[in-house]
Structures are given as structure tokens and as C-alpha cells.
């Protein structure tokens, strides 16, 4: 304070007062427009103001982030939980949707075959053998499943038959297995034969129909169904379509190569026909 009222200090106060007076006069004369002082100060102060504003904004952002971190974290947790819940709901929806489609398809098949009783089962595991095609399903004799019961998919396409049963599970041998043998009928021309698995065709997931009396009548793309002979399989179940005509290695026995209608690689649920009306 002592320094302030010294001679040098009085000069400074005087200069400040003069600047203040000039600024006041300038503002009074400009009547709302940018005054002389503003024009003078603007180029100098603008970058500083801009830098300060930016700095304050940054500080405020950091402060907000720190202050709201817990809140944001809680919100993040909540959103993650919500996403997980939605994903779970989506999975359930997809499963229900797929099951619904399967049941609709089955309903159509069941409506066409009211004489049949069916037991829905889930495929548990496939055989590890490279020489056989079979899988284990989730139900056994306690659900009414018996040995040699035919098995179909939801479209009614033949999958195979039950070849082993316990109280709680069963083994289904598919129609491409080399032990499978069943009466078949070429739907287009009524020719009958025997459909069976074959080692030559096993790798390509196909089977053959042999003993057709007139092989020339076999149509490529024609449908092959169960003949119902023997009473093990109901008549009219779709086995597959003829994809070619071939001949055995001896050259004596021609046969029709059949591609199964059921997609064996995609089976997850199948239906065991536990009872049906035999029509010879």
C-alpha cells in the first residue's frame, strides 16, 4: 500500500483512470456497437479467451467424468445386464420359434396320418463309428418306445428305426446304415424294391434300392417311399429321391441311388412312431 501511494504508483493509477475514462466515453458514443476499446482489445484477448474457454470446458468435462463415474459405471452395468437379458430372450425366442415350426410341420404330418402315435425325442449323441450311422435319443421304453419302431423327422421323412432300447434312452439306426433294409416303392411307377445302406454310398450319405424288376422305369428325381411290406414301417413314408442309377461291382445288379429326404446332419428332434395301422 505504501508503494501504491508513491509517485510511481500515482502515475499508474492516473493512467488506469485515463483508460477507464476513454473506455467509458467510447461505450457511451458507440451506442450498442463495438466501441473503440473493444476494437483495440479484441485481437489481443480473443485467442486468450478462446484458450481459456477451451481449458475451462476441458476441466469441466474432467470434473463431470470424475463426478459421474460411479453413475456411468452403474448405468453401464445396468445396460450390460439388459443386453444379456435381451440376448437370452432372443435365444429363447429363436428356440421357441424353431420348436413352433417343427410342431407345425409335425401337425401337418400327424393330420395326414391320424392312425399313427408319435413320441417326440431329442437327439443326444451320434455314434463315433465311421462304419455305422446311429444316434442316441432321450427316451426309451418308459415312454412307450419299442425295438424296431420307425423314426421320422418333423416333415414325416423317414430317418431310421429304433435298434436298441433301455428304460430312458434308445439308439436309432438311420436309413443309410449298412444294416438297414426295408421295403421300398418307387412312387411314380409303383415298382417295388429293397432299400438298404451300402458301403459305397455311405460316405456320401445315400442308400440304394435294389431288386427293382424294371430298372428302366426308375425316374431320376422320382420319390421313393416305404412300401409297408413286413409291417415294420408304415406304408407311404418318404425315404428320399432317386439321384441316379448304378450297377454293383459284379456288373449284374443294377440299383437306384437314393438321396434321403431327411437332412441327417441337421437332426436335433425326431419322432418315434410307437403305433400305426398296418396296411398290407
Amino acid at each position, binding site marked *: 500500500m505504501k508503494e501504491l501511494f508513491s509517485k510511481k504508483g500515482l502515475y499508474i493509477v492516473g493512467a488506469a483512470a485515463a483508460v477507464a475514462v476513454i473506455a467509458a466515453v467510447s461505450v457511451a458514443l458507440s451506442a450498442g456497437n463495438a466501441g473503440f476499446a473493444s476494437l483495440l482489445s479484441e485481437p489481443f484477448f480473443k485467442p486468450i479467451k478462446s484458450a481459456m474457454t477451451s481449458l475451462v470446458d476441458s476441466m469441466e468435462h474432467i470434473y463431470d467424468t470424475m463426478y459421474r463415474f460411479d453413475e456411468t459405471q452403474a448405468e453401464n452395468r445396468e445396460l450390460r445386464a439388459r443386453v444379456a437379458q435381451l440376448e437370452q430372450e432372443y435365444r429363447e425366442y429363436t428356440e421357441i420359434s424353431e420348436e413352433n415350426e417343427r410342431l407345425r410341420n409335425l401337425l401337418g404330418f400327424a393330420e395326414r396320418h391320424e392312425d399313427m402315435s408319435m413320441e417326440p425325442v431329442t437327439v443326444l*449323441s*451320434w*455314434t*463315433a463309428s465311421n462304419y455305422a450311422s446311429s444316434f442316441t435319443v432321450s427316451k426309451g421304453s418308459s415312454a412307450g418306445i419299442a425295438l424296431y419302431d420307425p423314426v421320422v423327422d418333423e416333415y414325416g421323412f423317414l430317418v431310421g428305426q429304433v435298434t436298441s432300447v433301455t428304460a430312458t434312452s434308445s439308439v436309432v439306426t438311420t436309413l443309410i446304415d449298412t444294416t438297414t433294409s426295408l421295403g421300398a416303392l418307387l412312387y411314380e411307377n409303383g415298382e417295388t424294391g429293397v432299400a438298404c445302406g451300402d*458301403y459305397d454310398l455311405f460316405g456320401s450319405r445315400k442308400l440304394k434300392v435294389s431288386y427293382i424288376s424294371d430298372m428302366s422305369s426308375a425316374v431320376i428325381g422320382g420319390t421313393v417311399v416305404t412300401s409297408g411290406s413286413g409291417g415294420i414301417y408304415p406304408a407311404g413314408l418318404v425315404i428320399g429321391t432317386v439321384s441316379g442309377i448304378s450297377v454293383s461291382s459284379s456288373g449284374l445288379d443294377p440299383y437306384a441311388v437314393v438321396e434321403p429326404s431327411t437332412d441327417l446332419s441337421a437332426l436335433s428332434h425326431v419322432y418315434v412312431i410307437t403305433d400305426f395301422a398296418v396296411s398290407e
Partner: protein
Amino acid sequence: MAKGKYRTLVKLLILAPYLILLYILQATVFTRVTLMGVKPLLLPMAVAGVAMFFGRTDGGVFGLFAGMLMDLSYNQATVQFTLLLTLLGILLGMLSDTVLVQGFPSFLVSALLGLFLVSAYQALSLVVLRGAPLRLTAAIGLRQSLYSLIFTIPVYYISRFLCRVMGAGRGI
């Protein structure tokens, strides 16, 4: 005696989960992962690994349980693989005890021998019992053996690791 019992218990605790893991892989995962139309065989290779690193007795016991699980994974109520893999474990353990030097080349030979024995047994039994053509069954056997060979490296290193964890006294 107490030490011997302890070692047996540790062996059981180490080898049982390994066997179950391989069984689950063979019976579930690899039944859907096919190559050249065939699935790999993991259990015979595991028997070869255990026989090499643990010896004929452990190889035989491991082979017994591996065979039981293999019969199970084949959906069959027979004991053919139970017998076959037990014999394989003992045989490969004997070879390892006497002839084979422990190491990957010997393991590869053992695994190949095991795989070919199993494949030959499968192919010939189908030829004899069901009249299946040898050409086709042998081709399937060859493919499954070749595919399985991919897994010799992980099976070898896992077997060796388990042996080291055990501190098994076979010079490892």
C-alpha cells in the same frame, strides 16, 4: 505302502479327467467334425500315450477304461474295444518298456500302430461278420487313421505333461 497308495490316487485323479475329456470330445464334438467323410479316433492314441509314458500296467488299465468308453461311444453293447484297447495298452507299454525310446517319433509309431490295429479290426470284423467289401472298409479305416494322426501332437504333449506332473518314474 502309503506312498504307493497316494501315487495311485494321484494317477487316478490325473488320468480319469483326461480320459473323460477325450471321450467327450470323441463322442460329441468330433462326431460332427468330419474330414474326408470320417471322424477321428482319439482314445486309441491316448492309450498309446499313457502306455508310453506310464508303462504297461497303467497302459493296460487306461486301455480297459478307454475301451469301455469307446464301446459306449459306438452305441454298441459289446466289449470288443474294451478288450482290444486293454491289449493295445499292454502291448504298447511293453514295447515302450523294452524297444521304443521315449519321444515323439516313438509315440507316432505307437499311435499309428494303435490306430491301424483298431481300423484293421473294425474292417476285418465287418468283412467276416457281415460280408462287407474289404476294399471299402479298408478305405474307411485308412481315412480315419490319417485324420486321427492330426491329433498325435496334442495327445503326445498332454501325455508327456501329465507324466511330468505325476513325476512318473520312467526317466522323463
